């Protein structure tokens, strides 16, 4: 578990470095000119795959090792299996995936750039992860499952279904039809893998760190099921005004609006659960997931509106969308993942923990994220305006330069934040996190946390 956490932070740093280089290349395009593997396109592939699979994938797995035993009262299936999953994920997926992409062996599909040979290992690792974690949930029966457990189950099962669809189908289904499947995956990658795992962490950390049960189990389950019903139906909104049948586009746009409503339910429940923790919670894990919840609200309302034709027309293909995806992956998902790691670290007696560094990480990451989002959103509006006005194309590139400059500068706080996070979880005295928790809210045995992480019905029944 610890290993996944460290791997997560290392891959985060590597992926962020890729991201910073591509941001700089938009300003100084001669950067890396004579080195094929340093060219923009290849680094761009490595950046997003690294963030999604390397950083978030590892961080989520790390959290599962902490969360699943508490949620289910059962140990995970096997330690040896854990070593296998770790090895596969990092040395059969991440390392070869990056090397192949940088060497020019890849597929030009958004969120699916690792080549097919790597996809095989992704699916295998996901299967093993399902074997590792899923049986724990069935040991006690479904009726006592807390919402985090549902999200984890849903995430594991549906990623296993959607990953091959997004990574393999477009290779065998041509053109516009293949794009229809790609569109589904672009959304499912975020909606059925990243979102459920991030929400599982948020729903776990809030009651565990605040020592209060969540506001409403009913709303949590309503939100969960609506999310799993609606998320898959969103995909086609990535190709509005395309040749894909209008009925499918309109269906996806409608589902997007409904999804926005669902997120309002989820976020309301989460914020009500955080009542009393303060605007900036003292507990660092809680602070990260609180900010994550806020970003989730913003990114989802934004997503629901930019799927609508009038907005889509103005901002599609622009940096607005780049801002949106950073808000999702960096704002919502990365804050949740960081919160999950910090929370788990606080509860490992031998883990090093440096609260100062983690506090720095939080504020730097928040600053970088907010500035980047605002900057790219404005850049997108400027580009969209110039395109609509029929200005010569190059003017939209020239006009973006200052915005790209600011975006590149946000690399400084963000890289600082990621380094601080790594420092925070690898330096400092062993067990400092645990002592901090003891001092503030006092430690509690697992069997006292567990009831709060179960639906009301189960608590009453027990």
């Amino acid at each position, binding site marked *: 578990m610890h290993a996944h956490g460290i791997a997560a932070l290392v891959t985060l740093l590597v992926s962020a470095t890729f991201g910073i280089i591509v941001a700089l*290349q938009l300003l100084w395009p001669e950067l890396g000119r004579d080195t*094929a593997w340093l*060219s923009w*396109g290849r680094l761009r592939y490595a950046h997003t795959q690294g963030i999604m699979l390397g950083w978030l994938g590892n961080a989520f797995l790390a959290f599962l090792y902490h969360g699943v035993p508490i949620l289910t009262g059962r140990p995970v299936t096997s330690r040896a299996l854990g070593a296998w999953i770790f090895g596969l994920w990092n040395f059969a997926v991440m390392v070869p995936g990056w090397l192949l992409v940088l060497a020019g062996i890849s597929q030009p599909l958004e969120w699916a750039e690792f080549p097919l040979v790597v996809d095989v290992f992704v699916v295998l690792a996901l299967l093993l992860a399902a074997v590792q974690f899923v049986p724990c949930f069935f040991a006690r029966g*479904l009726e006592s499952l807390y919402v985090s457990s549902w999200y984890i189950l849903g995430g594991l099962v549906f990623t296993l279904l959607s990953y091959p669809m997004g990574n393999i189908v477009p290779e065998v289904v041509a053109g516009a039809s293949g794009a229809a499947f790609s569109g589904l995956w672009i959304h499912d990658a975020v909606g059925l893998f990243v979102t459920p795992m991030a929400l599982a962490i948020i729903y776990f950390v809030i009651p565990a760190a605040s020592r209060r049960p969540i506001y409403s189990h009913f709303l949590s389950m309503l939100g969960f099921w609506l999310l799993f019903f609606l998320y898959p139906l969103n995909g086609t909104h*990535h190709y509005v005004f*395309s040749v894909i049948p209008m009925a499918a586009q309109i269906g996806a746009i409608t589902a997007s609006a409904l999804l926005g409503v669902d997120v309002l339910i989820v976020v309301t429940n989460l914020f009500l659960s955080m009542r009393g923790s303060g605007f900036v919670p003292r507990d660092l894990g809680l602070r990260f997931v609180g900010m994550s919840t806020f970003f989730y609200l913003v990114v989802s309302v934004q997503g629901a509106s930019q799927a609508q034709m009038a907005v889509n027309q103005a901002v599609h*293909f622009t940096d607005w*969308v780049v801002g949106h995806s950073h808000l999702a992956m960096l704002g919502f998902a990365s804050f949740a993942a960081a919160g999950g790691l910090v929370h788990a670290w606080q509860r490992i007696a031998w883990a090093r923990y440096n609260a100062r560094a983690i506090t720095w990480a939080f504020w730097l990451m928040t600053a970088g994220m907010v500035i980047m989002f605002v900057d790219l959103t404005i850049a997108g509006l400027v580009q969209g305006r110039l395109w609509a006005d029929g200005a010569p194309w190059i003017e939209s590139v020239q006009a973006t330069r200052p915005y790209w400059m600011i975006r590149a500068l946000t690399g400084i706080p963000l890289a600082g934040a990621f380094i601080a996070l790594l420092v925070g979880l690898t330096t400092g005295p062993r067990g400092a996190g645990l002592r901090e928790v003891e001092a503030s809210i006092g430690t509690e045995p697992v069997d006292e946390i567990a009831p709060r992480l179960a639906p009301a019905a189960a608590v*009453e029944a027990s």
Partner: protein
Amino acid sequence: MSGQPQRALRMSYVVASVAGVAFFVMSVALLGWWPKRVLDEQSRAMGPEYVLPLSESARRGRVVYSREGCAYCHTQQVRYLHTDMARFGAPTLAWETRLDYPHLWGTRRIGPDLTRAAFTRSTDWHFAHLFSPRAVVPASVMPAYAALFDGAPDRPRQEARDLVAYLETLGRARELAAPEGEARAREACNCTDDEMAMMAFDGALNAHPGRARRTHEAPALPRSADLDRGRQLYGEHCATCHGATGQGDGPGARGLRPAPASLAEHEYSTDRLADVLWNGVWGTAMPAWRDRRPEDLAAIAEAVRALTRAEPNPPVPDHMVELGARVFRENCVQCHGDEGLGNGPAAAELAMSPSNFHRQRPSLDRAIRVLRNGIDGTPMAPWTARLSDAELIAVAHHVRGYYEGASAAPGGVRR
């Protein structure tokens, strides 16, 4: 608590779980499988019976395009939106993508859409641009792909040739199918009036503002022009190839065949400059600049004219005049026409139009040099084998004599 609510809860979870999977299946069915069926059908009905497959070289070029992430800055999807159509042309139809494994639609457009890239740029322009984008387009942020070349834009390696071969297929199938193809698609569309209007069969198939046109009216440029603005625009957009002083020696010039015009050595009439700026020069790397406002084009024309080096025009001795006329009549009229209008009987067969000397005048030096060396990359051949030095000089004087001055009316047929 009794077991009753427990069982109800369990049942509801089972129902919800089944529904969850069902919704996922539904998403694949309704947003993946069903569109595929519709698109396959549409593709079959609206597309040509036989779509030219990619050549082996273009197929390899597509792999280069994919691996370098070109699709992450250049979309290949013209949407059913006026802003897209005005800039790039007809929206992408399903059949146009039916050989795309996998699709390269893209989600971000930093550079222009490439759906209809075929016929918009010359091959040598592509090489120069891929080798060093900013040597051609100073404000470009495109990465340089020098690794595909042996150190110079005119020494492309196979991968660069493949990539350009691929670029030159983009939108080709639709273009080759038109207008019969458009008629067939329109008929087979079987769509409502709304959809028909959306599919914009009536608009330009390829609306690229830089695409050169061989014969086309050019709008008259505004009379007054801002020379400072013209110089600024020239510096931003023209100097890369034509050179800061108009000698045709800018950083992008290397690798272009024919070389960019040496503006300093020519005088141009206003309508010639308007024509070149508005329509480009067919068969060369010179693109059109139709996305610019006429005031800007007029300003550029003014700046170009200011580059011309003044030259004395000494009177030509009579015997030279006669000799020049005779040499021209015997050797040049096939292409350049009886009156030097560039409309000889062979002109239409050539890959690019012969000079119309009424609308542009080379310096004497330049004319003699061209007669001696020809112009690489054009049908203009060296004449030293056929003509003596005296004849070369005489005919150089002769062609210079046709020029009608800067404000010549757009007379004569340009072919």
